[in-house]
């Protein structure tokens, strides 16, 4: 168990490319932190720097109270689970799990006890004598988790551990890892590019882009109050709709005007919109904040020509275009909806987000 602190961390490669610049992050003891972002955003590099597998070009990294910039991976009291599992192919499952303890000269009886306890917890007892090549993807991943667990490290690092598994197994392993975190009461740092994994597992989430932290917050805060358009678009599935609109004041109320529609903005946002009067902003509407309008609904209603209607079970995903931009609505499936037809949609204006068009930062929500 340990906290992790990154102070002004920088990573520059030999060719001069800087992938992480001036990164500051404080991870509390026993927290489950997710690093999420698109490919190449620097999330894996950050994790590898914490593990000691990547040299730190600048700044300070603390695990607990100890500065570990120049401490080798084996002395950092960490364990890591890799995307490719990275099991030793010539060793049995038992030996794979025992290897780290053996290197630390733990007595044989204790190794045996720990390996069997971890195997029991992960349901891999019957495979202990097998070689990794005789196991399925999910079983290998559990062995990799077991290998990390038996070490009882202060910090658990997981680098996209579920990426190679099929959808069903991924859901199962997701809850298993969350349970493991509860039982082990250790700090977990988990890298993924899958926002569903991030939202369902993490206590707090670090959203990264181009080596810079965009927002570090709880899943609820990221979803309800994204700090910029990148976070708003990245978190949530299907992703948030963005519409360019003009802010206009009509008799003490502000309106967001686009194409033929004028959306009345709630009064709580008035103070923030004063300086944007008669200026273009970006209106963010989550697909799930739209619903099929009643005949009586007159205000905050827009029309969408549905190109494709996808039924997912409980919901319909309606795909169309507004202002030549892709627009998605997520509405209840308790009524029949067909493609190539127009539907009136009601916007839940209390849940809209307004972003600055130039710097893409949140103005109000």
């Amino acid at each position, binding site marked *: 168990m340990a906290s992790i602190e990154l102070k002004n961390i920088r990573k520059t490669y030999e060719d001069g490319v800087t992938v992480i610049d001036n990164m500051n992050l404080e991870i509390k003891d026993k927290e489950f932190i997710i690093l999420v972002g698109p490919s190449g955003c620097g999330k894996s590099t950050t994790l590898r720097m914490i*593990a000691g*597998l990547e040299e730190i070009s600048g700044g300070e990294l603390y695990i607990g109270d100890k500065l570990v910039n120049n401490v080798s991976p*084996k002395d950092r009291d960490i364990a*890591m689970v890799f995307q490719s599992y990275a099991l*030793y192919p010539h060793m049995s499952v038992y030996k794979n799990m025992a*290897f780290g303890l053996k*290197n630390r000269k733990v007595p044989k009886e204790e190794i045996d006890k720990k390996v069997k306890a971890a195997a029991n917890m992960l349901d891999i007892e019957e495979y202990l004598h097998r070689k990794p090549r005789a196991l399925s993807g999910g079983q290998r991943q559990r062995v990799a988790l077991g290998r990390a667990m038996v070490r009882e490290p202060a910090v658990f690092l997981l680098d996209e551990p579920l990426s190679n598994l099929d959808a069903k197994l991924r859901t199962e392993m997701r809850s298993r890892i969350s349970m493991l975190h509860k039982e082990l009461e250790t700090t977990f740092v988990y890298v993924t590019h899958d926002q569903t994994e991030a939202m369902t597992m993490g206590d707090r989430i670090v959203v990264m882009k181009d080596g810079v932290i965009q927002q570090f917050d709880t899943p609820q805060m990221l979803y309800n109050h994204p700090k910029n358009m990148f976070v708003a678009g990245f978190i949530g599935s299907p992703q948030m709709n963005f519409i360019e609109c003009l802010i206009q004041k009509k008799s003490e109320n502000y309106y967001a005007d686009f194409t033929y529609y004028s959306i009345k903005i709630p009064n709580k946002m008035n103070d923030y919109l004063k300086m944007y009067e008669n200026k273009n902003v970006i209106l963010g509407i989550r697909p799930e904040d739209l619903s099929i309008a009643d005949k009586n609904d007159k205000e905050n209603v827009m029309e969408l020509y549905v190109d494709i209607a996808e039924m997912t079970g409980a919901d319909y995903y309606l795909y169309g275009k507004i202002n030549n931009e892709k627009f998605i609505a997520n509405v209840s499936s308790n009524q029949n909806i067909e493609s190539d037809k127009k539907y009136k949609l009601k916007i839940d204006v209390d849940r809209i987000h307004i972003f600055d068009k130039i710097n893409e930062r949140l103005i109000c929500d």
Partner: protein
Amino acid sequence: MMKSKISHWISFAFLLFLSLVFIFPIYLVVINSFKSKFNIIGEPFSFPDEDTFVGFENYIYGIESADIVGSFFRTLIITVGSVVAIVVLTSMTAWYITRVKSKFNKWIYYLFLFSMIVPFQMVMYTMTSISVKLGLNSVLGIIPVYLGFGSGLSVFMFSGFVKGLPSEIEEAAMIDGCGPIKTFFYVVFPMLKPTAITVAILNAMWIWNDFLLPYLLLGSNNKTLSVAIQLTMQGAYGAIDWGGFMAMLVLAVIPIIIFYLFCQKYIIKGVVDGAVKG
């Protein structure tokens, strides 16, 4: 369908012919080793019959006169020593220059490749004279010389295999408490086993059968098998005891054929792995 059958039979016939071309000299050596030396030159292709068959006479004569036992052990020491040195040291070298990316390592790698294309005959006199000056003209001294000659191909083969290994396994070992030496011997080397066996077989066959290098460096004081056979069976004025010569040739190749048969499945696997993953 018909066309593919015909091409199948053509390639079968061609390969059969090729096999016979390669097997025929070995067949000649074996049958002639049981014939009297006077019948070999006159009827080299005939199978031993009542008049020409001499049993194991040639073998007994060869073993008695050519110091076969001494030569056998010298060859064994040189072959085993060189092969162990080549396998251990070149696999470590290949791992290092593949994993640690630098311009220097790139050049070292090219230097190893370059050494493969320099023919031995081109450097044999200068190399022999340098080796003698360095005191390498002994049974143990020749091992580093073989290491030098064998390292080009071996580093090339090991590098091809190492490139195909995921580096995460080595990183996992580092986190599990291994330093570089332990990572190599406990994690990397076991994974290199197929290539290591291939490298061992190829080098063992070459070193065991080599004539020129031990002839130049060790001369007649420390004869290896191939040198002993040549020097002993060649009499005065170029006269050759063909019977003894054939018998000793058969004896000399038996150990390496047995070694090959035991390990041949690994040769193919190792060569293919190196080729594909390189």
